[in-house]
C-alpha cells in the first residue's frame, strides 16, 4: 500500500470517530482519522452535558436504546483504560405534579424494557434525602443508579491518542470536500490533498448528511439543535447527582449537574437553528436556564457563573441513530445522526461500526502489540505533596504554576503540546489551564508564550482554536525613546 492508501478513513474526530478509531486500532489495519478542525473534539463532543445516561429515555427497540445501555456498560472500563475521569453519581428525574408523576412512571417502564439496571421511583422526601438541594416542591423522582458523569473532550482526546499510539494516523485541519469511487476504493479529497481508502466511516456529526450525499446516499438529513449552558465556579457546587426535569418533545430538559472537575452547570436549552455552526449563547437562553434551574435547585448561585457556552446536536431525520452500511455505497459505513445519548453510546457505536467494517469485507486480524491503555497528562493539582515533590525532581517544569486558578504547571502544558495541542483552547481542554474562575485572564499570555516557544511559531500566528481565530493583530509599532 502506498503512503496515501488506507484500509479505513474515518471522517470526523468527535467522540464517535475517535472511539471508532480506538476500537479499530486493535486490528492490523491502516486507518486515518480526518477532521476539518485543527484539533479533535471541536464539534458536539466539546460542548454537551457530559452525562453517561442510564438509558430510560430512549424508545424501546431503537438503535439508540441498544447503544445507550451497552455504552453505559462499557464506559467505565474505557475510562479506566484511557485515564478519563468518570463518576457514577447517579441521576434523578424530578416531578412536580401528577402529570410529571405519570411521565416518571412511563420512563421507569421504558427503562425496564431497555434493560436499565438500578432504577427506583422515589417520593419527594426520598429524593431530597439523596439530593438535599432539590426544591421542596418536588413530589416524585426517578432514580437511576447507573447514570454517571465524565469529561466528553477528555474522552475524545484520550480515544484519539490511544488510537494514534496504536498506529492510526491523524489528519487535522483537513476538511473533506469530495468523495469519489476509484479502483474499488474511495478517493477522499480534502481541498488540494487527497487519499484513497477502501472503506469510509462517516462520523461527521451535524455535517454527516453532506458527507453521505457525496457518495449519493441522501436517505437522511441532519438538522442542528442548539443547547446552551452556564457553568459555575467550583466553590458554589451544591448538587452531587445529575438532576433532570421531566423530558419534553424537544429533549431531556434543562438539568443541573456537577462536573467531574467539581464545577456545576445548568443546561442545555433546546432550540432548532438554521446554521449548523451556530454556537452562540443568547439572552433568551440565559433567561430560560436561570428560570428552569432555579425550579429544580432553588439555592443555585447563578452569580457564580464563570462561563456560558453552547453545543449543537445532530438531529437525524429518521428519529434514530443511523448506524449501518450505506445502501447507496457498500464502502460507506454510517455513524450518523448521533444526537444525545451519543457520548454515552460511543464505545458501543465503536464496537458496532467495527463489526460492520468487517461485514463490509475488511478482514480484521488482531494486532499482537495492541496497547489498550493511555496515560493521562500528570495532574499536579491532584497529587499528594510527596508525589508533587517527586514530579518536580524529575522535571522542574512541573514546579512552575502557569494557571493559578486551576494550579496547572508548565510541565503539563508542555506535555499537552507534545501530544498535539496547537492552540490556546487545545491546551485548555487538555490541561484545564484557563478553565477556572479567571477564564485565562491571567494565564493566556503565559500559555501563548509556551505555545510559541514549543511550536517555534511567532506569537502573532497563534490562534484560540485554529482557522481565523488569531489572538493578536500584530506587534507594537516602533517607538523612538
Amino acid at each position, binding site marked *: 500500500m502506498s503512503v496515501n492508501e488506507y484500509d479505513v478513513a474515518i471522517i470526523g474526530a468527535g467522540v464517535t470517530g475517535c472511539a471508532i478509531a480506538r476500537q479499530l486500532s486493535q486490528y492490523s489495519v491502516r486507518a486515518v482519522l480526518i477532521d476539518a478542525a485543527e484539533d479533535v473534539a471541536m464539534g458536539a463532543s466539546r460542548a454537551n452535558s457530559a452525562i453517561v445516561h442510564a438509558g430510560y429515555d430512549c424508545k424501546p427497540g431503537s438503535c439508540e436504546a441498544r447503544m445507550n445501555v451497552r455504552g453505559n456498560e462499557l464506559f467505565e472500563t474505557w475510562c479506566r483504560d484511557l485515564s478519563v475521569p468518570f463518576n457514577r453519581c447517579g441521576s434523578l428525574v424530578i416531578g412536580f405534579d401528577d402529570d410529571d408523576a405519570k411521565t416518571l412512571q412511563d420512563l421507569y417502564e421504558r427503562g425496564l424494557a431497555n434493560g436499565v439496571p438500578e432504577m427506583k421511583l422515589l417520593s419527594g422526601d426520598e429524593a431530597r434525602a439523596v439530593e438535599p438541594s432539590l426544591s421542596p416542591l418536588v413530589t416524585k423522582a426517578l432514580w437511576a443508579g447507573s447514570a454517571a458523569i465524565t469529561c466528553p473532550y477528555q474522552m475524545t482526546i484520550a480515544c484519539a491518542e490511544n488510537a494514534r499510539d496504536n498506529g492510526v494516523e491523524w489528519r487535522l485541519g483537513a476538511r473533506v470536500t469530495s468523495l469519489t469511487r476509484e479502483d474499488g476504493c474511495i478517493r477522499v479529497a480534502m481541498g488540494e490533498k487527497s487519499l484513497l481508502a477502501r472503506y469510509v466511516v462517516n462520523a461527521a456529526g451535524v455535517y454527516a448528511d453532506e458527507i453521505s450525499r457525496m457518495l449519493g446516499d441522501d436517505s437522511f438529513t441532519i438538522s442542528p439543535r442548539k443547547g446552551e449552558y*452556564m*457553568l459555575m465556579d467550583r*466553590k458554589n457546587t451544591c448538587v452531587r447527582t445529575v438532576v433532570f426535569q421531566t423530558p419534553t418533545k424537544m429533549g431531556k430538559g434543562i438539568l443541573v449537574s456537577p462536573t467531574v472537575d467539581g464545577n456545576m452547570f445548568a443546561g442545555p436549552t433546546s432550540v432548532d437553528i438554521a446554521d449548523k*455552526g451556530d*454556537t*452562540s*449563547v*443568547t*439572552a433568551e*437562553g*440565559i433567561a430560560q436556564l436561570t428560570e428552569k434551574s432555579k425550579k429544580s435547585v432553588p439555592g443555585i448561585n447563578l452569580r457564580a*457563573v*464563570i*462561563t*456560558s*457556552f453552547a453545543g449543537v446536536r445532530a438531529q437525524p431525520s429518521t428519529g434514530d441513530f443511523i448506524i449501518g452500511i450505506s445502501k447507496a455505497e457498500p464502502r460507506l459505513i454510517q455513524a450518523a445522526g448521533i444526537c444525545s445519548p451519543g457520548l454515552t453510546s460511543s464505545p458501543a457505536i465503536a464496537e458496532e461500526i467495527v463489526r460492520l467494517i468487517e461485514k463490509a469485507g475488511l478482514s480484521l486480524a488482531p494486532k499482537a502489540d495492541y496497547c489498550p491503555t493511555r496515560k493521562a497528562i500528570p495532574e499536579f493539582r491532584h497529587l499528594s*505533596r*510527596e508525589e*508533587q*515533590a517527586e514530579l*518536580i*525532581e524529575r522535571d*522542574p*517544569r512541573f*514546579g*512552575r*504554576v502557569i494557571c*493559578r*486558578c486551576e*494550579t496547572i504547571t*508548565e510541565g503539563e502544558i508542555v506535555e499537552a503540546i507534545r501530544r498535539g495541542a496547537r492552540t490556546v483552547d487545545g491546551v485548555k481542554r487538555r490541561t484545564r489551564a484557563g478553565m477556572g*474562575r*479567571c*477564564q*485565562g*485572564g*491571567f494565564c*493566556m*499570555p503565559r500559555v501563548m*508564550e509556551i505555545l510559541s516557544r514549543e511550536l517555534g511559531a511567532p*506569537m*502573532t500566528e497563534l*490562534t*484560540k*482554536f485554529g*482557522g*481565523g*481565530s*488569531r*489572538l*493578536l*493583530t*500584530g*506587534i*507594537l*509599532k516602533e517607538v523612538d525613546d
Partner: protein
Amino acid sequence: MLVKKYDVAVIGGGPAGLAAALSAKEREPGLTVAVIERDKALGGILQQCIHNGFGLHYFGEELTGPEYANRFIERIKGSGVDVYLDTMVLELTPERRVVCVSAANGLMAIDAGAVVLAMGCRERTRGALNIPGTRPAGVYTAGCAQRLVNMEGLMPGKKVLILGSGDIGLIMARRLTWEGAKVVLVAEIMPYSSGLNRNIVQCLVDNGIPLKFNHTVTNIIGKERVEAVTVAEVDPRTRLPITGTEQTYECDTLLLSVGLLPENELTSAAGIDIDPVTNGAVVDETRQTSLAGVFACGNVLHVHDLVDNVSDEATLAGRAAAEYASGQASRQQTYAVKGVNGVRYTVPQRVHAGLDGKTDIYFRVGNAYRPATAVVRCGDTVIAKRRKQIMTPGEMEKITIDAALVTGDLTVGLEEVNPS
C-alpha cells in the same frame, strides 16, 4: 519537602507585599522576613502599568508603575528581606504553614510566626457578566491586554470597544489609541464611572473617545475573531437593556474593564472570615484577620484605586505582623465597624478598644452623592464627621477617628446627603 522557618512570611511581592515586608523589618530588625512571589520579578501589577500617575500622595511626585515599584524593590535589596521569586504559594494552613512550589526549590514549606497576605486581585471576566454571543478570539480583560501591550509588545486588536469605565479600561483606551488602534466606544452600564475622574479626562476626552453611560454590551458577533459588538442602553433602575436601543459597532476586539476581585482562595481555604462585600478578609485596624497572626493588605483585602493607599495599608499590616511575631500582640477586645446609609463597606471591619491616637477608616459609597457628609457613630454618639463636595463609588474615602472614643460598635454612614 524543604522546611524553613521565618518570623514573618509575606505572600505576594506587589506594592502591598513589598511595603509590608519593609515595614516589618523596620519595626523589628532582628526578625527574619521572606517575600514569596509567583512571578519572575517583584512589583506585582505595577510592572505592567507603565503610565504616569503613581505616588502623588506617597512620594509627592508622579511616577510610572514600574518606577513606583522600583523605589520599594531598591530598598528591599539592602534590607535583609529574603525574596523567593517564581514561587507560587499553594496553601496556607491555620498553623501558619505556607506551602509553596517552584522549579528551583521544588516543594517548600515555610513555618511562619506571622503571615501577611498580599496576593492582589484578579479581573472580572465575560463569563461573570453572562454576555451573550459567540466566543471568538479577541475578547480580553483590560489587564490581560495591558500585559500583552506593555510587557510583550503585542497588539491585541486594531478596532476596539471597551466595556466598563474602570481605570484599567480607561488607561488602555489611551494606550491602544497611542499605538495606532481605534477605540470606537467605552460603554458603562452605570450612570457614573468607577474610574478616577482624571483618567476620564486624560484618557478619553483628550483623545476624543466617546463614553456612553447607562449602556452595556448585549451581543458579541463573529465566529473566529470578534467582528462586531452590539451595545444597548439600559434602564437606569433595573440595569436591563432597553429593546430597540441596540447599536452594532464593527470592531475586532472587546476589552472588559468590569471590576476587580480580591484573590482570596488561600485565605478562604485557611478558614479565614471573608467580608461578602469586599470579598477580602475581615480585619481589625492592624489588618489582622480572623486567624491570629495572619494579616492582609492591598488589593487582596479590598480593591484600591490608588497604589499610594496600598502602601500605607501595607505599612500598618507589616508593622503589626512584626509585633505579633515578636510576641507583642494586642489582647484587647474588638468592636465591629459597619457601613450603613449609603456606605457599602468599611475597612477595617473591627477596631480594638482602648487605643491611643488616631485610626483611619476607609470606606466606599454605593452611589454618587454631591455633597455628602460621612458620620461615624459609637452608639448614639457622633465621634467623627467629614463633609465632601462629592463622593462616588469610584473613589475610596477615608475618615479618621480618635481611637480613645471607641467604647462600643461603630457605624459609618452618610447623612445630609444629596444623591445625584
